[in-house]
């Protein structure tokens, strides 16, 4: 067998079904190589071969039935063409824009994602960014740490820093009341906020007011929180009109995807004071962030790390392993998007 399967492996492992990995998941670096391991399958590690990918797949992956895509490694129609035995594409993300879903459907391939394993962390960060923004937490921490000199207490400079804004009683508009949006709503409800939402369809079991139009939602809230996925429909959905409807006292929090907001327009509104502030974990051209934002105290900037907690990575590893084991045992998967069984 090929050298990259490793010397000294047990004979039994050669009979284990294989799962293709295009590139090493960040988990390997953080938790060690064994974090996704199982006695029910083994990994075929494409990056360990000197061959270019398509040749590698033609030579070694013809009987591989499952792909694990991590770090957004794309699963294209071309890749699938080179792997005729694939029946499962498993991704470690919740988002699926890097997987050619249509091609998977055509080929009868099941697609599974990481489900709701991240939702709590993302919701927590949305709330954290919002409180930080309204109460100037990052700005004040910067102030204290940069200026270790006695405060000009005589001038009562608590208000020279820019006094904060109360969260309770504010109207929160959630764009996308899915798994993440619902958790955000539950949290902010406890802070005394009133919740309303916009979604593709109204949710019958939800009592929060529904707005079929995101512009109308923005006009009726003080805080707009973007919790939806990025699709052709949601691209630049938060545009000049929506930001204008949100208004001078309004703030926006984005923990979805950068391109959902017209970033240039957002920057203009912030710089010109047409909205009050923003908390952003995502941007249109990560890791580039518009330089105008770097100078503003009324924004909180986060490097797309809403899911970067130890606990969630561990939960996700468990979920991935359980899904792959279920697949190879012909049992139902825990999370599925496209079911072609």
């Amino acid at each position, binding site marked *: 067998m090929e050298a990259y399967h490793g010397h000294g492996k047990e004979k039994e492992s050669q009979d284990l079904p294989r799962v293709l990995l295009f590139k090493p998941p960040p988990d390997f670096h953080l938790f060690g190589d064994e974090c996704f391991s199982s006695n029910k399958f083994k990994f075929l590690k494409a990056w360990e071969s000197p061959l270019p990918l398509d040749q590698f797949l033609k030579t070694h992956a013809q009987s591989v039935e499952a792909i694990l895509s991590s770090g957004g490694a794309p699963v294209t129609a071309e890749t699938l063409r080179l792997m005729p035995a694939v029946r499962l594409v498993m991704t470690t993300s919740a988002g699926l824009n890097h997987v050619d879903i249509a091609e998977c459907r055509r080929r009868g391939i099941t697609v599974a994602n990481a489900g709701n394993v991240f939702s709590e962390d993302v919701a927590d960060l949305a709330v954290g960014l919002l409180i930080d923004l*309204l109460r100037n937490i990052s700005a004040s921490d910067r102030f204290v740490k940069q200026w270790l000199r006695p405060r000009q207490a005589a001038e009562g400079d608590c208000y020279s820093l820019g006094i904060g804004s109360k969260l*309770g009683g504010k109207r929160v508009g959630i764009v996308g009341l899915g798994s993440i949006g619902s958790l955000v709503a539950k949290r902010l409800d406890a802070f005394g906020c009133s919740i309303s939402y916009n979604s593709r369809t109204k949710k019958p079991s939800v009592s929060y007011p529904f707005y079929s139009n995101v512009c109308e939602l923005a006009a009726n809230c003080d805080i707009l929180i973007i919790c939806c996925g990025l699709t052709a429909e949601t691209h630049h959905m938060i545009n000049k009109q929506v930001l204008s409807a949100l208004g001078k006292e309004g703030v926006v929090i984005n923990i979805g995807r950068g391109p959902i907001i017209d970033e240039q327009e957002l920057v203009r509104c912030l710089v010109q004071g047409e909205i009050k502030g923003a908390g952003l974990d995502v941007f249109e051209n990560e890791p580039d962030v518009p330089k105008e934002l770097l100078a503003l105290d009324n924004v909180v900037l986060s490097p797309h790390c809403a899911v970067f907690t130890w606990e969630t990575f561990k939960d996700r590893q468990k979920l991935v392993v359980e899904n792959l084991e279920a697949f190879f045992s012909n049992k139902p998967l825990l999370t599925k998007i496209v079911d072609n069984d």
Partner: protein
Amino acid sequence: MDNNMDNNSNNIIVLMVCPVSNYLEQEIEKSFKVFKLWHFEDKEQFINTHKDSIQAVVGSAAAGADAELIESLPKLEIVATCSVGLDKIDLARCKEKGIRVANTPDVLTDDVADLAIGLILAVLRRICESDRYVRSGEWKKGEFKMTTKFTGKSVGILGMGRIGTVIAKRAEAFDCIIGYNSRTEKPNLNYKYYPNLIDLASNCQILVVACSLTEETQHIVNRQVINALGPKGVLINIGRGLLVDEHELVSALLQGRLGGAGLDVFEHEPDVPEELIGLENVVLLPHVASATVETRKAMADLVVGNLQAHFGKKPLLTPVV
């Protein structure tokens, strides 16, 4: 605002002992004559000159009325503090002399609780640090580090009063497990009561200091409590700096015996221990837990309302003594 006072009201002299806000000053000046102690270089001389005319003192968390001040103002009738904390006021002496005391409870409870949760998230999820990571251009070089999840964690609350109760309710929305320590166990609470603070600290990951500062509670969060909280533990203080042994806190953070801290208050404000400045696992705020436009106005209105009530011979709105 109730201006139902007799014509001599503008002659009543109020001494503000520290700056609070322009709004408060303006509102007090509408009905009273105001002296601002911080405008006078020789404070002793000022007091000597005006001691027989000052009938009210207005303070805040920064300064109040200690024994010395109270003794030097024979005409003092009321101390109104723009804070809920009373640690800067010699309550016993006020009681003794029949001086009324009023504070500003309830109106700031939500904001203080919000900031406590904000600090927890800022520390656990490294929000301030990650904001710096973006602003400094570090993100272009690589991904940010791993952080710690908040949902589902165990939160211990020291002091289950007005503020502690509201903090607990917010933490519940994050599915946190709540425990608390208080002078007495509170009936009808669904949270686990720990009669011993060290036990609470041993059994929670995040300890929130939300009790009032009294002679008994000075340095209640000491070395043993901090060690019990441990290398993965986080201390949040939105109470008063003196509740925590700051020297022990600093050494625990420097030595890694405590995982992190979110602090809005310090022993000697506005001074902050220099050793904390470089620590990324610490978030430092300049005593802003009640600092929102809405709440500061409500607090100021309450101070003025109490003054007007007293001098209008009506019941105080929020009496303490």
